[in-house]
């Protein structure tokens, strides 16, 4: 026999449970329905592609995210690798959505990508083939008239793989109307070569001013004694040092909390983002990213109209790297432009944000 008093006693507990569930559902979902989100599947990787903005324009701007191991989808919510090191503001690239369709996608074993792709087995060519599948799928799914690709930071390596590596590079370039290199690198050692002397100077200033912390001493030793990077660990240490030298250290806690916070009610999955970041950075793939330089031999094949944007204060992708690319690519001088963002580190800051947005719009309007 059931005691009626029992129901009275338990009344508050299920009510509380119901409230918890209702609160969870009532939170505003972000990105659960806007735009067009689909997946491309290739070689053990399932990669999300999110098309947002003005698809009626027929102009599709594809963003290759940085990293390796970062996320394009996260860029919808926050600028993932901001120049000032603060993961607390919207990406300036979002403004492009007003006029064009912007395509955010996550590379294999990066961001929200799923599957069972082994970073240790990933080849350079995989990234190019993945990007081609993204472009082909856009053509299947939308009325595409023009395609522009933004290679952001490491994403420029992905763009260069697509445009120049393998036997099909000319055919692939035919599918794109313009290329935008934003704070891009295609090797680890070229930026290191330019950043190390500037970093050493900054480290020495800190040590001379009395801040002889072990970190600055270690960075000074690295930059003074290491002629070139040969293992991922050196590369990681160099990145840590340049982040400090630029005073743009992205707080690990802030990054994790932000990523997880967006996981509650959005398409972003912080668990997967973290797992992928861990898998990629902990793999021999990173050693190959540091030591292999196939794109140095092929970068000259880029013949598309190209806009290059680099920060004058950037030590991750120094402006000298931008100059090297400008001089090297095969694009005629009339169709390429190098813009130095004078106030910016690894990402547009301050008034440079407007400069970045204006240059992007002008470039796209010229070549669509």
């Amino acid at each position: 026999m059931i005691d009626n008093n029992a129901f009275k006693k338990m009344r508050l507990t299920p009510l509380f449970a119901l409230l918890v569930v209702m609160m969870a559902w009532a939170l505003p979902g972000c990105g659960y329905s806007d735009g067009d989100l689909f997946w491309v599947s290739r070689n053990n990787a399932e990669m999300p592609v999110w098309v947002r903005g003005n698809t009626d324009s027929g102009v599709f701007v594809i963003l290759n995210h940085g990293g390796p191991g970062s996320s394009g989808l996260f860029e919808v919510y926050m600028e993932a690798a901001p120049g000032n090191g603060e993961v607390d503001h919207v990406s300036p690239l979002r403004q492009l959505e007003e006029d064009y369709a912007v395509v955010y996608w996550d590379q294999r074993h990066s961001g929200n990508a799923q599957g069972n792709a082994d970073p240790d087995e990933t080849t350079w060519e995989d990234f190019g083939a993945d990007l081609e599948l993204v472009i082909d799928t856009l053509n299947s799914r939308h009325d595409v008239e023009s395609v522009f690709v933004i290679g952001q930071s490491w994403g420029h390596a992905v763009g260069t793989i697509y445009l120049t590596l393998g036997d099909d590079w000319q055919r692939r370039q035919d599918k794109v109307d313009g290329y935008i290199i934003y704070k891009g690198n295609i090797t680890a050692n070229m930026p290191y070569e330019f950043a190390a002397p500037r970093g050493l100077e900054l480290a020495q200033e800190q040590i001379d001013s009395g801040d002889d912390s072990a970190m600055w001493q270690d960075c000074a030793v690295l930059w003074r004694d290491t002629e070139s990077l040969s293992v991922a660990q050196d590369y990681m240490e160099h990145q840590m040092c340049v982040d400090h030298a630029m005073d743009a250290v992205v707080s690990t806690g802030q990054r994790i909390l932000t990523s997880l916070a967006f996981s509650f009610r959005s398409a972003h999955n912080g668990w997967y983002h973290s797992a992928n970041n861990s898998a990629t950075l902990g793999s021999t793939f990173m050693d190959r990213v540091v030591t292999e330089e196939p794109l140095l031999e092929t970068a000259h094949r880029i013949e598309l109209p190209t806009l290059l944007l680099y920060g004058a204060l950037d030590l991750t992708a120094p402006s000298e790297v931008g100059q090297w690319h400008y001089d090297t690519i095969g694009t005629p001088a009339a169709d390429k432009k190098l813009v130095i963002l004078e106030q910016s580190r690894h990402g547009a800051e301050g008034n440079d944000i407007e400069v970045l947005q204006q240059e992007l719009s002008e470039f796209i309007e010229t070549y669509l």
Partner: protein
Amino acid sequence: MTRTTSIFVEAYNTMNRIIVAAAALNLACACPAWAGGEPVVEEEQDTAGRFGLSVAYFGETITHPGFRLGGEWSVVDRPKYALIAGADLGFYSHKRSHTALFTDVKFGVRGTTRSGLYLDVFAGIGYFHTWVNGDVYVQDGDGVALRGLSAGRPHVMPNGSFGLGWDFSRKTELPLSVFVSLAPFSEYPFNTKSAMHAALLVGATWRFRSTGQEQ
């Protein structure tokens, strides 16, 4: 290129190792219990039975909704604590990310006060199958993307849970308990490594009396 997150990577890997180790320990503990022998029951037990069925909201990262149906058996049942073996079947969906279907076996301990308030800890191992949410395209080899069908991906699911509940049978005739629990679990393989998750469960368990057990 990337900014280093080595501290985070280490912390993440450590958490994963803890979950997997807990699940392995669970198997070692659970096997003898599953293997049988008569359950140890003390005469002064509560009025509910040793077998329970539970239903629960399964919210991965709290807000990605799902449902879990579970069964549990008190292998050792004493007034203050019980050793419990159980099995679950459930699913959840993270919109625009993935949908998962899972089943698991688990073993744990539950301590209950005279008033009926209880805490429990479980560890388990399960099968976890995921599908991405959305259309999936593959290359046909001629530069044309084709919409394909995905069979999803299989995974192993080491898991645990930390629960807080209220057993009404301690003070009333009602063989019902309600609970809230936090359930971390891992998905392996995920890009050849493992991905952690955590879920919030809110549910209720109905205990059935064994044959011959007095009301």
